[in-house]
């Protein structure tokens, strides 16, 4: 067995063990912490699969933000956890569920073992056309040139999810601030950590954003890091969560998608197709879209975590 195969095998076993823990353990909080560890292991798996951009996204969003979101909810719902578990299904249902899950796994495993060879690939097409986009990172070229429509729709999905969450607010607190936990202890460790970590995090977030043109990184990974720094500021009580009725906030949130749509419209006018870039100006357009998306994504990701408005305007 080669060292590389041994490493992969150990990683796969750890992944299965952690996922099994997250799914099967009794305590919800223990499950969520297991899920966060699982997210970190998954990041390593992505590195092994030669997907450094995906690894960064998984570390930031899959493990980090999702874990944070679930942990917050688990703490809030702790009082009813015991009652919810009482409705556990009987043995027969469990056996049927295990059979269903097992057959799906077997079908997928069969599909994996019989994948066509040689594998179909779009890599040659990307390699042939990447020079036109003037960016060095093929993934950025796919995200913002070849499949830019996907990225535009993704930004719109984020805005829609945020509107969906806001609309869950009680009528009396509509337009108010999310009820995010706030620590007022100015000598506390969180306060101290926020003061030390946020400047460093902002620099790293900006760096990851900027190198995305030519190396692994990009706006989503950078925006997630910046959103995490914002959440840290709010958690430590250094900044309050924003009023969702604030016009400035809403303007920044839609800025990215609007610029993206504007650049797309410009493409159909100048380059002959929606989201087409005029010859020689591709990189300029891509940087403009990314720069506009960065603040919007940062705000949206942070607001998705903060949840529905909980406090009336003025409080």
């Amino acid at each position, binding site marked *: 067995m080669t060292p590389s195969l041994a490493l992969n095998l150990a990683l796969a076993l750890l992944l299965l063990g952690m996922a099994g823990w997250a799914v099967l353990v009794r305590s919800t909080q223990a499950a969520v912490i297991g899920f966060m560890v699982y997210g970190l292991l998954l990041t390593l798996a992505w590195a092994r699969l030669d997907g450094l951009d995906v690894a960064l996204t998984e570390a930031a969003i899959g493990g980090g933000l999702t874990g944070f979101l679930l942990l917050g909810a688990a703490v809030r719902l702790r009082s009813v956890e015991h009652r*919810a578990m009482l409705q556990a299904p009987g043995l027969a249902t469990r056996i049927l569920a295990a059979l269903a899950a097992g057959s799906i796994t077997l079908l997928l495993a069969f599909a994996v073992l019989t994948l066509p060879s040689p594998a179909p690939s779009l890599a040659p097409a990307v390699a042939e056309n990447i020079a036109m986009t003037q960016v060095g990172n093929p993934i950025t070229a796919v995200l913002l040139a070849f499949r830019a429509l996907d990225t535009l729709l993704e930004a719109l999905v984020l805005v829609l999810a945020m509107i969906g969450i806001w609309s869950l607010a009680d009528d009396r607190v509509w337009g108010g601030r999310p009820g995010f936990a706030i620590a007022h202890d100015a000598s506390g460790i969180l306060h101290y950590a926020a003061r030390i970590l946020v400047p460093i995090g902002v620099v790293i977030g900006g760096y990851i954003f900027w190198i995305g043109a030519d190396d692994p990184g990009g706006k989503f990974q950078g925006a997630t890091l910046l959103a995490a720094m914002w959440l840290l500021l709010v958690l430590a009580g250094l900044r309050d969560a924003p009023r969702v009725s604030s016009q400035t906030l809403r303007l920044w949130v839609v800025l990215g998608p609007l610029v993206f749509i504007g650049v797309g419209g410009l493409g159909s006018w100048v380059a002959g197709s929606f989201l087409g870039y005029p010859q020689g100006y591709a990189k300029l357009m891509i940087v403009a879209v990314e720069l506009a998306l960065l603040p919007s994504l940062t705000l949206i990701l942070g607001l998705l975590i903060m949840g529905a408005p909980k406090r009336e305007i003025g409080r």
Partner: protein
Amino acid sequence: MNTAMLFGLCASMLIGLGLYGLLTHPHPLRKILALNVIGSGIFLLFGAVALRGAAAGMNADPVPQALLITGIVVAFSASALAVALLLRLFEVTGDVSLANDDPATHKDTSKDRPHD
């Protein structure tokens, strides 16, 4: 066994594990978590396929990888909306039960169950 096949098989098992959790856990938050395990398994499977597509000097096919980044972000926004819905359910009813056959918490079930 090569890397793509190993992680492909691992992903198949992760999807099965998540599906089992989704079907058997009564707590909605655990269902959301299980759904995320299924999602990560599907992503990993797609990642294995991307690795098999290595060509033209690239270590993996960049098109599926870019779609994966989009997928991870969309999965997160769906989870955030699901968690917000769950917290709202808890706020309104004081419970997180998804069962609909409890007359105490659901007074108006006549429309759902016409044969009763």
